């Protein structure tokens, strides 16, 4: 009886000890991993920070202006007359039944009727 209890205790102790040892090792491994991850996060943050500065550098308005002048010569600064208020916009023409054969015709009539009916409906 006494022997069994002692054996039980010893076994329990071994299990607890090895369990504790195992958990400790696991925690240490995980902590190492976490430290590495955090280091990586800092590294990434540094990279992002650098890229933000670079983004701003490449967005210098004078650079963009030069690029537009060279690559988009047909783009011009907007003029005041290109702005129209919502009220002055013509109303939308009600959809007519469009058949495939009459599609092109309908489109042109719509386009012309906009300029004629504009704002009267």
């Amino acid at each position, binding site marked *: 009886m006494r022997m069994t209890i002692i054996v039980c205790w010893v076994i329990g102790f071994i299990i607890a000890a090895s369990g504790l040892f195992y958990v400790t090792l696991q925690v240490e491994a995980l902590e190492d991993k976490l430290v590495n991850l955090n280091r990586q996060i800092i590294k990434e*943050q540094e990279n992002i920070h650098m890229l933000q*500065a670079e983004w701003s550098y490449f967005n210098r*308005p004078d650079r963009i202006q030069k690029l537009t002048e060279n690559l988009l010569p047909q783009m011009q600064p907007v003029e005041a007359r290109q*702005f129209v208020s919502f009220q002055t916009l013509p109303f939308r023409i009600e959809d007519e039944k469009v058949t495939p054969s009459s599609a092109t015709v309908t489109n042109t009539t719509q386009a012309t009727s906009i300029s004629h009916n504009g704002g009267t409906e």
Partner: protein
Amino acid sequence: MILSHWKKLGYTTKPVKRMTLSDLKRQATLQGQQTEALETGRTRLMITGALMALAFTGIGFRMIDVMALSNVSEPKTRNISQSQNLTFDRAPIVDRTGMLVATTVKTVSLAADPRKIMDPQDSAEKLGQILTDIPVAKLYKMLSRKAKFVWVDRRITPTQQQKINALGIPGLEFRTQESRVYPQGNLMAHVLGYTNVDNKGISGLEKSFEETLTSQGEALRLSIDGRVQHIVRDEVQKAMTEFQAIGGSAIVLDANNGQVVSMVSLPDFDPNQPGKASVESHFNRTTLGVYELGSTFKIFNSAMALESGTANMSSSYDASKPIRIARFTINDYHGKNRVLSLPEVFIYSSNIGSAKMAEAFGAGYQKDFLQKIGMLSPSPVELPEVGRPQYPKTWRPINMVTISYGHGIAVSPMHVAAGVASMVNGGTHYQPSLIMQDTKPKGTRVISARSSKAIRKLMRANNIAGSGKKSNAIGYFVGGKTGTADKVKATGGYADRARISSYVAAFPMHKPKYVVYVMLDEPKGNKKTFGYATGGWVAAPIIKQIVTRAAPILGVTPIDPTSEEVNRELALKLPQDSHT
């Protein structure tokens, strides 16, 4: 307890048979010896047990100490494993739109310990191939110096670092440092200022916000819009080249809260390399420079006349003869030689008429008024570089007369822009600010809404019939006033061909949202301007360009130029002969 064990094991203290006397005697001695031995054993056991117990108690305490209590000398593994954020010693600065305009980056510098370098000549040659901007001879000199530490190169690129590392020269070392970077270069030079090698702000906002930038982590947000800033800088630069001006200055100011959307002073410099720029380019003409700005002051003069009640829109002034006061003669630049109404005095920029207006309300009123709109103290804008206005100590009648048309008083362009904003926005003066504010600042009322409306009409009329025609950006109802003033020579008196030409405008004039100020320093007329270099010829066209390009970005909706409602709002009985 121990005794009972002995008994079990067969030892006994009881006699088992009758003994003789001698036996007894012998036994007594034996017994005595036994007891003695037993006592000794017991004592030894006690001491050992106590020692063991003490040791275990010690170990127990130590275990509690190690496991439960934390110690200062413990390695801080827990802190490392906690997630951290990247921090810098100096917070970034962003513009109104959130674009980064000043930031801190980690840079690598190359240092050396010359004592550890075995072959300075060979090392210098190898380094020279990587650090191409330093001559080999200079590198050799550095590496052969008798010192423990020398900086070889500050701020090397990652590629250079990699290559130098690959050389494997002992005695070279990399040091990581923080350095301030201005990705947008010259764009906001005079607004931001710059820092020295130790990241300490020594001019501009970097200096005035030194404490905020080094203590807070979050970015400082400016009211400056980088896009508008570029447009303004671009246009002033173009005009400076066209008219061979030595300098230029421009401001775009939100008329209804005093926020500076753009502030340019040219020539400017690259804050990344402030040392390479000329001394001249470090000078901030917009806030530090004070100038006699001339006729733009007639806006304030007219407001004084209307607000003081000494005049109304139909008052008239005889401008047919020059005024002689003290030993000076006041004359008109565009002389009409007749009686002029108040709007005509404004539109034709009559000095004689302005002087007569000022005579009606007097010097005291003039000084108080200028004080109220901040013209007599340094601009409250958040820059260390603010100029102290220059004005006469004693306000004599001659001073009052010249100040009425903007001479004899020198203020910075920022003063004029903020002053004009308060004249057109309904009469509230706001302190100009370069920092984005979430709440609308509290202004102080300086003129009545009625006087403000009259000023708006006058400024608009000047763009229709006066000197400001070239600033008309169609659809934006620009109104403004020119200023052309001869520069004061260093020797005293006025220079003849050196002048300050400026234009101050607001738009849209029926409900002003922005005030735009432009100034060119010593422009020269060309064929296109028929040799003229006055505000109306050189500065007004810049306003037109700025308004046309920047208004869509600023969110100002253009209005049909023929809009009856708006034109009626700004209607003013204009003089008969409108050709100037």
